[in-house]
């Protein structure tokens, strides 16, 4: 819809065809750009259809509306849209007991479906001790709603998620990451691909916050891993306004949108840490963002280097776009074996890129490019496609789009994460800025950890 708004701003009339179920999303998008009157024609063509009969029927049914949208004169409202008063809620939004607060927040669409901690002034004030920035400092505006991400709003959502004040530097860095235009956040957060922000944490803050990098790091049970991602999602939903099925059109959805946070096990890695690879100092603390929609737990073909790398190259899935990126989680024991046999990150990336291939006929775009029914746009077949269906095609052309990090517990698995690409850069890492009181704050909260009784 952003293109439709650009076209109208250039004084050319336009109409946009959208699937019926995307009409709300289209209207939110054009309103957020200040042009609520952009004309759309909802149509019945199934999403991304490759069946010409369906497309023909859907377009035929919409033709009268398409022509009308370009020729029927504008209404007064379309010429000069009325300004809608923005709600200015009072500082205290609700008063009630725990159950009532939770029901109120849930009915407003402000939770992730799980109970939240009531964000009272007192608890939010404690959360704000996690940063030196003032509550009214605005980190930026989060799309699609362009909500103001002030430090106070970040803290309120962090409280709701059950996060500790020591997570504030991470959450602020997280907001900075999604606000970075290179992240393409506006695309991936609401994409049909159900991409979930996945945060890899490096540096001393891993220990300050007890972020799990070992066994079950992506499983529930650790307050930092659980609440950092959850707080970021509430920030995205309540500040950015991306709501499932309205603006966030993820087809399948993604449990990673509850939380998806892991620390790198730098101490057990034979290679330089991820944030150092991305230009930061080892003593810096940093968060690396990716928009991930799948985690593959690959049972390794063996524990020697050849078997580990074979597992990687034979399991990159062909139903992926060339614009996707891949990350490989190497468990510490495998990382040490690979390093011992002379494999550095650079060599592993090059090997995977060179050898992760499938026959062309198995590749995502094979039928799309060769189907007679899909040749609507001339020149759509990329020049580098193989001639014969049996010829191999590389699934990851650029080794620099591969990320490797070390985490996970003892075992015989490799993790592979596939994720959407950024703009201009392959990776996005943000440094954390810690408040002056950091040591005392860490001292106050670091001891909070579960003690599992033996049975």
């Amino acid at each position, binding site marked *: 819809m952003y*293109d439709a708004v*650009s*076209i109208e701003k*250039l004084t*050319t*009339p*336009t*109409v*946009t*065809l*959208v*699937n019926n179920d*995307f009409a709300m999303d*289209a209207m939110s998008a054009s*309103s*957020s750009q200040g*042009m609520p*009157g952009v004309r759309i024609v909802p149509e019945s063509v199934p*999403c*991304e*259809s*490759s069946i010409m009969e369906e497309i023909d029927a*859907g*377009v035929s049914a919409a*033709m009268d509306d*398409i022509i009308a*949208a*370009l*020729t029927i004169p*504008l209404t007064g409202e379309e010429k000069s*849209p*009325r300004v809608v008063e*923005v709600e*200015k*809620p009072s*500082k205290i*939004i609700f*008063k*009630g*007991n*725990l*159950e009532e607060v939770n029901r109120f927040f849930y009915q407003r669409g*402000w939770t992730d479906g799980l109970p939240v901690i*009531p964000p009272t*002034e007192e608890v*939010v004030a404690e959360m704000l001790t996690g940063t030196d920035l003032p509550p009214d400092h605005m980190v930026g505006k989060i799309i699609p*709603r362009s909500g*103001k991400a*002030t430090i106070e709003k970040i803290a*309120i*959502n962090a409280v709701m998620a059950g996060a500790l004040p020591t997570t504030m530097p991470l959450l602020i860095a997280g907001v900075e990451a999604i606000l970075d235009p290179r992240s393409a956040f506006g695309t991936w957060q609401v994409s*049909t691909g159900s991409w979930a922000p996945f945060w890899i944490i490096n540096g001393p803050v891993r220990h300050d916050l007890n972020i799990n990098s070992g066994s079950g790091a992506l499983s529930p049970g650790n307050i930092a891993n659980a609440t950092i991602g959850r707080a970021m999602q*509430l920030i995205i939903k*309540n500040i950015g306004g991306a709501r499932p099925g309205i603006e966030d059109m993820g087809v399948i959805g993604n449990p990673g949108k509850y939380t998806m946070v892991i620390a790198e096990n730098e101490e057990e890695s034979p290679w330089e840490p991820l944030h150092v690879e991305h230009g930061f100092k080892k003593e810096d603390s940093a968060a690396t963002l990716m928009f991930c929609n799948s985690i593959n737990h690959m049972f390794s073909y063996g524990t020697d280097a050849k078997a580990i790398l074979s597992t990687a190259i034979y399991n990159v899935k062909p139903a992926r776009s060339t*614009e996707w990126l891949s990350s490989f989680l190497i468990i510490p024991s495998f990382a040490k074996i690979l390093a011992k046999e002379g494999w550095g990150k650079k060599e592993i990336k090059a090997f995977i890129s060179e050898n992760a291939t499938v026959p062309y006929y198995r590749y995502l775009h094979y039928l799309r490019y060769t189907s007679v029914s*899909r*040749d*609507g*746009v001339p020149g759509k077949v990329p020049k580098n496609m193989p001639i014969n269906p049996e010829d191999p095609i590389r699934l990851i052309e650029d080794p620099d789009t591969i990320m490797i990090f070390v985490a996970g517990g003892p075992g015989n698995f490799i993790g592979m994460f596939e994720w959407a690409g950024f*703009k201009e850069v392959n990776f996005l890492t943000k440094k954390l800025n810690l408040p002056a009181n950091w040591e005392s704050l860490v001292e106050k909260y670091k001891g909070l950890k579960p003690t599992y009784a033996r049975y």
Partner: protein
Amino acid sequence: MNNSQSNEQYEVLSPWADVDPVPLKGISPRVASLAGKKIGLLSNRKPAAGPILAVVEKKLKERYPTVETSWYEALKISVPQVETEGKAAFEKWVENSDAIITAVGD
């Protein structure tokens, strides 16, 4: 939730962000008829966008034989054209069109 603790009252702050009012703008005047007009077809590169617009083009020309069409295909999926290196070419194409039909393919 019936114990005494659940009746503790909480005055809670709103997590919903404030927004600045967005300056609103109207849309452009329409054309009187499509006959003889230059109609642009903008595909966002999603798989169905091209085929949908190809059918639109065919049916448009059936109804208005004097219509001229021109295509523009997005450089990247889901990235606004004015944020790409093709901005100038896109804007020139828009200005050379009397009206534009876009399909998002979803």
